[in-house]
């Protein structure tokens, strides 16, 4: 074998080795998402929808938040009627994922948990090891960083819109909400919530909310923002009971 042939053979071998390594890398990259998704199998089964009759007014009647006197006065001034200015506002997270009527669901993807509810709440909880940003922009659902402690998801949320309503008043600045979510049993999800809102609360507000797994798929949405609302005058938010009959009513039955 000539020297030239030997060099060619060595070059070919090197080239094949490089291609083999590249191929292996490409294979690894191709497998990575599958492996990441496979890791979800270690997480608890929170599939389906979860309903609560508790995370709402009944709970707050039993256990009002520890509002500071000024905040309590402001809540009193607001009165029992709904605030029309809240009409058609986007969902805001101030510690409750679902309220009076809303079932919630959890979507697991690698490094992330997404929480939604029937009214369009969308919380992105990053559970990929990233740190909480030092000064997050204020948003309606804040910035949520999660971590798994065994089968319990621990979530810290900051960066909440200071004007978001809590206990009938704007929640204020420097809010931190800590949630611990875990299955109490296969059909019951327990969320322990601690809300720190130093502008309006005398002390952290601690609550335990229980959600029951809903057997049926919840296909419907609930929204107040419809093209025609008999209860609220669009634009002004003024309350009403509009008795204008539907256009397609059949005639009355024969007398």
């Amino acid at each position, binding site marked *: 074998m000539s020297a030239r042939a030997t060099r060619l053979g060595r070059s070919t071998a090197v080239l094949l080795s490089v291609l083999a390594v590249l191929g292996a890398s490409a294979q690894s990259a191709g497998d990575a998402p599958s492996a990441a998704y496979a890791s979800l199998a270690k997480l608890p089964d929170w599939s389906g929808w979860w309903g609560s009759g508790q995370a709402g*007014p009944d709970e707050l009647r039993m256990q009002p*938040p520890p509002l500071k006197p000024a905040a309590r006065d402001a809540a009193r001034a607001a009165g029992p009627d709904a605030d029309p200015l809240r009409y058609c506002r986007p969902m805001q997270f*101030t510690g409750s994922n679902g309220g009076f009527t809303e079932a919630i669901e959890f979507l697991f993807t690698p490094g992330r948990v997404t929480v939604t509810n029937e009214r369009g709440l969308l919380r992105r909880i990053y559970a990929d090891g990233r740190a909480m940003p030092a000064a997050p922009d204020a948003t309606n659902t804040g910035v949520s960083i999660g971590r798994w402690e065994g089968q319990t998801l621990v979530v810290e949320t900051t960066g909440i819109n200071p004007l978001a309503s809590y206990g*009938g008043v704007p929640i204020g600045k420097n809010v931190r909400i800590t949630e611990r979510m875990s299955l109490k049993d296969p059909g019951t999800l327990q969320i322990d919530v601690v809300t720190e809102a130093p502008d309006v609360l005398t002390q952290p507000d601690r609550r335990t909310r229980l959600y029951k797994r809903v057997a049926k798929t919840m296909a419907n949405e609930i929204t107040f923002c419809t093209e025609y609302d008999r209860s609220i005058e669009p634009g002004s938010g003024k309350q009403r009971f509009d008795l204008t009959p539907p256009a397609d009513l*059949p005639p*009355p039955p024969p007398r």
Partner: protein
Amino acid sequence: MAISRCVSRAIVAALGCVAAGGALAHHSYAMFDAARTVTVTGTVAKLEWTNPHVFIWLYVPNAARDNGFDLYAFENGSPNVLLKRGWSKETFAVGEKLSIAYWPLTDGRTGGHLAVATRVDGSVIRAAGGPGGSVDASDAVAAPAAPAGKP
């Protein structure tokens, strides 16, 4: 004492309206007379299956009217809440006779918030929501007698 209790209730009601994520922030129940329910019997004109409230329209006989009927409207919960309580958009058929117990409008118009309906065959359908705000507020209201007619 009575006043402070009233104020306390007002505060709690305000908290309930807002801290529940806005679920009750749609409107108050002040437009309905929470102290009493009224019963009427009539024929279903329409089941309006819409957000944020389902409405039931009922033709109720009234000989004093030119056409012989009053048209009543009954507010109810939202479709998703009613689905959880066993309703569907086909729960009531047009032309079906019903007796309905409801919390009347305080302004005297022909309507209110549905509490409970009874069919000709005696079966009972309970609404969602009502004065007080809880989903199952209608559970405390007695079902009216079944309307006359053949099931």
